[in-house]
């Protein structure tokens, strides 16, 4: 029971982190119809910028400044890159963001090298918040949850309660009409892109100390984020939330409970072959849940695509 609680918290941290990325990604997608392949690269830039700033000004300034810089960079990419490519159609846009992801990874290696950066949580947060049956929960994890929840509530509030949010929502569905009403839709697009990438930057700042700040970090998380928004339904913010939490918990639980395929197969009535290492089915018999934890999201995605192609919360034919 206690272990379940610990896993629930761990899964929540992973899920909320995923959500910070997928929220921006899905917002950008529903607005411009373009999937920002470089989204996770902005997450990586957030971590690296925060590391560089924290060397000079401390962690908290990093948390404040790095997302801002990333957001401005993102807005610049939209203004000078994507808007230009937009005229060629969606596929070139996708290829452009893919190229950008490659370029940012190379750029990070160029500036900071291939090794992991010694980016760490601030000392003030390096203590144990509380312990559940001997499993200590570090304060930094609570801090991560706290930040993510604040951002989510803030985002929800801006989108549903403010004038700007209303215009954004209107621009999502009827960009032409909104433009005719006198709003600067390209500017809104740029702003949304900037905010979306800044959100990814925040995720990078707070995830960097836990998951490590290295050139491969964008790649590690990137494809999972895409899987998340496919599962949640392209363009659905609630879907992104549910899918993120689902993936967070699923992978955490799969990693901490050592479920073995052998037990399942025996339970189903199969008999284990005598010489397991010579059998063609040896991989099936020896699979354990921690082993496949990382590919569970992909399996879930394929299943969702087969049985519910528009995702959990997506609209039909979105």
């Amino acid at each position: 029971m206690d272990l379940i609680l610990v896993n629930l918290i761990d899964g929540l941290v992973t899920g909320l982190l995923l959500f910070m990325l997928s929220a921006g990604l899905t917002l950008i997608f529903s607005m411009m119809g373009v999937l920002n392949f470089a989204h996770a690269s902005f997450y990586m830039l957030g971590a690296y910028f925060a590391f560089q700033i924290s060397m000079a000004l401390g962690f908290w300034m990093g948390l404040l400044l790095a997302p801002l810089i990333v957001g401005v960079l993102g807005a610049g990419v939209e203004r000078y890159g994507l808007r230009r490519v937009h005229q060629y159609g969606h596929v070139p846009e996708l290829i452009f963001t893919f190229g950008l992801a490659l370029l940012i990874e190379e750029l990070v290696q160029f500036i900071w090298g291939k090794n992991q950066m010694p980016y760490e949580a601030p000392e003030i947060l390096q203590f144990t918040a509380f312990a559940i049956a001997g499993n200590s929960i570090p304060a930094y994890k609570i801090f991560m949850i706290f930040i993510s929840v604040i951002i989510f509530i803030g985002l929800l509030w801006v989108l549903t309660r403010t004038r700007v949010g209303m215009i954004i929502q209107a621009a999502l569905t009827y960009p032409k009409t909104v433009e005719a009403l006198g709003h600067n839709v390209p500017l809104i697009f740029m702003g949304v892109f900037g905010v979306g990438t800044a959100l990814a930057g925040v995720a990078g700042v707070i995830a960097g100390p836990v998951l490590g700040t290295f050139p491969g970090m964008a790649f590690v998380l990137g494809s999972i984020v895409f899987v998340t928004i496919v599962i949640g339904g392209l363009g659905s913010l609630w879907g992104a939330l549910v899918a993120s939490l689902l993936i967070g918990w699923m992978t955490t639980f799969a990693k901490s409970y050592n479920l073995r395929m052998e037990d399942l197969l025996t339970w189903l009535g199969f008999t284990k072959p005598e010489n397991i290492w010579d059998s063609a089915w040896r991989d099936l018999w020896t699979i354990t849940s921690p082993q496949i934890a990382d590919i569970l999201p992909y399996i879930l995605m394929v299943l969702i695509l087969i049985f519910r192609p528009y995702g959990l919360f997506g609209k039909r034919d979105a």
Partner: protein
Amino acid sequence: MSDQQARKPAQPLQAGSIALPMIPWGIAAVLLCILPFIFTNNSAITIMNQMAITIIFALAYNMLLGQGGMLSFGHAVYAGVGGFACMHIINSGDFFSGLPLPVLPIFGGLVGMWLAIIVGAFSTRKAGTVFAMISLGVGELIAACSVIIVVFFGGEEGVSGDRTYGLPFFGVEFLQQIEVYYLIAFWLMLSAILMYLYSRTPMGRMANAVRDNPERAEFLGYSARWVRFYSFVASGFFAGIAGALFAINYEILTEENLNTTQSGIILLVTFLGGVGFFFGPILGAIVFTLVQTVLSLQTELWGFYLGIIFVATVMFFPGGLAGLIMMHVPALRLGKLGRLGVPYLKTLLPAAIGALGAAALVEMIFHVRHAPNGDQEMTLFWTTFDSHTILPWGIATLVTVVGFGIMRATAPALVEAWNEANTPDGMSE
């Protein structure tokens, strides 16, 4: 441009016109035969083998991207799984000893096709973004499986074998690189011709129609989904052939043949070459392999340069290399291509020099940041100097600024010459 085409009188079909498209194929075949006699050393043949495999793979990829409008981020999987299957056939003992090696790629193709049928069944429902995401997810899934399904993928060390155990093919046992070269060259010709012919069939034409306007194609009575599915399966088949040739050439397959990096590279190759023309991917594969071989020996930063070139291509020349070349056809038809020579030289030469200067700056920054402490000497463009002194920085900056400065100054003249060369004589705007 469309004006000109409209003005041109309709050409009657000539009896001999069927022979004309054969000429490039004939040249290619002859070239493939004599190339090993020109570049005789082993490393050149290795590079040519790699080139040929990349060409087949890129052409297969372009069946999706260029002809079908489907962007796949996981196409390495079909080549990889085809290659792994061939590796297992090679290791199968009795079956392989009764099988001539040149037949093996068919099996690779069939396995690639089989996988494409399974995946395509659900992934081709939609084109565009959704298809791209699914291809990425499936690609990641299968790549991740390579460490779990050890029986088939061999875990981290991969699967290796010996191609010479096959049934000798007219006495050839494929011990030497050169014999493998001719095997690959044969398959290159065959698959390129087949893929070209495929693009000319009504099926291939429908793939273009679905790419450009799926709704209209559906109104004409064609199922866009099935058209995409058939393209996908055909592409999977040829990707499998490329994978099989990889297995024959390198005799080892690992996780690296499946992963997203490999898929990304093939997208890069195809797009740089140009997706709009059949020969684009061929060009892309040749240039990419050469540049990769040369640049990766010269600099650690070649991935960085490649990234810049790729992003610049997407932004400014979405037609790729082939598109750039074909842009000159109207000028050539008007017989005014020669007039572009001098303006080109005046603009592109300074631009190239400026780019080299910028590259020198980049290399110097990299050296200052990442070289071990105390190591201040670096060699660049056959010159050795101290990267911490001001002089080389000054020279590189000067070269960059002057190069790009001249380019900017002469660019308007080039634009003018370009417009002039594309306007028929006696006509002015």
